[in-house]
């Protein structure tokens, strides 16, 4: 039964926290007003990338060595596969339709946000908690922004991160070190996604006119 083990608790937490972004999005889409163009989404990814650099630096120091060593290059464990990867075959990436491109970004950040929120709940120092909370708020803004672009282009939003964010059967980290490894890979994937998104949105900028239907963002904390 799910209540007994820590994995079940994790899944429950994630599902609960992850259903939160859906609500403000519904409210927002009804208020057609100021614009959320692809350019703004692109700018958001650059801003987040910048924010992440500081956050990651602080967080990795908190994890301690070897995680904060610049040459740290661990092999990817199978368990790390549950974090969505930005890595993609070059030709495949080039050939993505606008819908697929946007959807991949939307899904990835929704899940990453989810994981980050769990992290936020667990982290030790007040400074880190503050940074993480702020970052999560900005990241939520990005998810909404991408959702806005998709809606205005007439694409359906991908199903939210409903269900367990990881294949069932993957246990929560059995020890402290592996938990830290999970955190390390989460930050790395987030960083890579932000780099990739800049390129994704560059491509979209060229193919889609800049002024699409705009939404007024009034998400909490943004």
């Amino acid at each position, binding site marked *: 039964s799910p209540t007994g083990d820590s994995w079940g608790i994790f899944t429950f937490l994630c599902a609960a926290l992850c259903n939160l972004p859906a609500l403000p999005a519904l409210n927002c889409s009804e208020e057609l007003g100021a614009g959320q163009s692809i350019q703004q989404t692109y700018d958001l990814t*650059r801003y987040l*990338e910048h924010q992440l650099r500081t956050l990651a630096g602080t967080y990795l120091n908190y994890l301690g060595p070897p995680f904060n060593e610049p*040459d740290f*290059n661990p*092999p*990817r464990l199978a368990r790390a596969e549950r974090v969505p*990867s*930005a*890595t*993609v*075959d*070059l030709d495949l*990436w*080039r050939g993505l339709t606008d819908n697929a491109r946007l959807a991949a970004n939307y899904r990835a950040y929704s899940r990453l946000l989810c994981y980050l929120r769990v992290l936020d709940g667990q982290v030790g120092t007040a400074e880190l908690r503050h940074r993480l909370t702020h970052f999560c708020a900005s990241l939520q803004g990005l998810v909404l922004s991408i959702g806005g672009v998709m809606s205005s282009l007439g694409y359906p939003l991908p199903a939210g991160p409903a269900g367990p964010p990881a294949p069932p059967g993957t246990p929560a980290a059995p020890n402290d070190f592996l938990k830290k490894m999970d955190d390390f*890979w989460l930050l*790395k*994937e987030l*960083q*890579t*996604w932000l*780099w*990739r998104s*800049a*390129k994704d949105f*560059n*491509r979209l900028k*060229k193919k889609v006119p800049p002024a699409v239907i705009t939404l007024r963002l009034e998400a909490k904390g943004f």
Partner: protein
Amino acid sequence: DSHIQYERVGADVTMKCGSMDWDAAVTWTANGTDIDESHLNGSYLILKNVDLSQSGQYSCYEGSSWHLKYQTYLRVGTPPKEPVLMCRSNNYPKGFYCSWHLPTPTYIPNSFNISVIHGTKEMVCEKDAIPKNRCHIRYLQLFSTVKYKVTLTVTNALGKNFTTLTFDEFAIVKPDPPESVVAKPVPNNPRRLEVSWQNPSSWPDPESFPLKFFLRYRPLILDQWQHVELSDGTLHTITDAYAGKEYIIQVAAKDNDIGTWSDWSVAVHATPWTEEPKHLTTEAQITETTSASTSSFMAPPTTKICDKGAMVGSGAVAVCWTAGLVVAAYSVLFI
């Protein structure tokens, strides 16, 4: 028969005359020149603390018959120091190249072996014909979280050495400098210079991977550069050039989001437009010319209030304005 023998600089070298006994009578030559007996220990040739100049062909002849008994080519050199390795992607997202060299020469032949490991996969770095000491790799995947580890091993007869580089896909992106930089004066604008350039031809996809640019310029007579960062476009007009001064201008490029700035482009020189020098005239002639052009407006006599003398005083300005309006009105009528 002939050999090649490699020895370190500073080593002591003992050469035996093939299978001859130690007490046999032999003569040694170095590049055809007889070697003095003081260097011999029996039939062995002793070279102490060898240096580079002692490289060459050494031959040993049997004393009386002058039969060639042994020949060797001595190459004096050093084992390799740690090589210098550099990897760079100037053609993102196609791939990257690595190039290397030795910090100091070894004076003997070296062989290089490069290995590229990406996560668990070993990738093949294809050697370039020109330049030597360079190889290139094509990316199979983009946006990788796993670092690339490149190891270069250099080996020669006296030893080996190696160096390793570990990097993220994004960290090594550095375009080539912009090409065809052209700077031109702008006619009738003594403080402007129009600069244009092109994307480096090695950058394969500027549409999806746009470049941004950094322009720097200064007059030749000053040391301080002025900088402008440009997020798109390959054209810029400098509007604050010092009139009449020759400028030096350079441009650099960078991927919009990742990597580092390119080296500076080839420098171009340009001087802003200057007016053609007029003939030297006296003060009186200049005044006359000015009054003459004012009267070409076909204005009524009242405009004479706005002659040169009246304009200087501020009290006359209001008068000038009304007169000017009258002039304008009349001019329109006459067009």
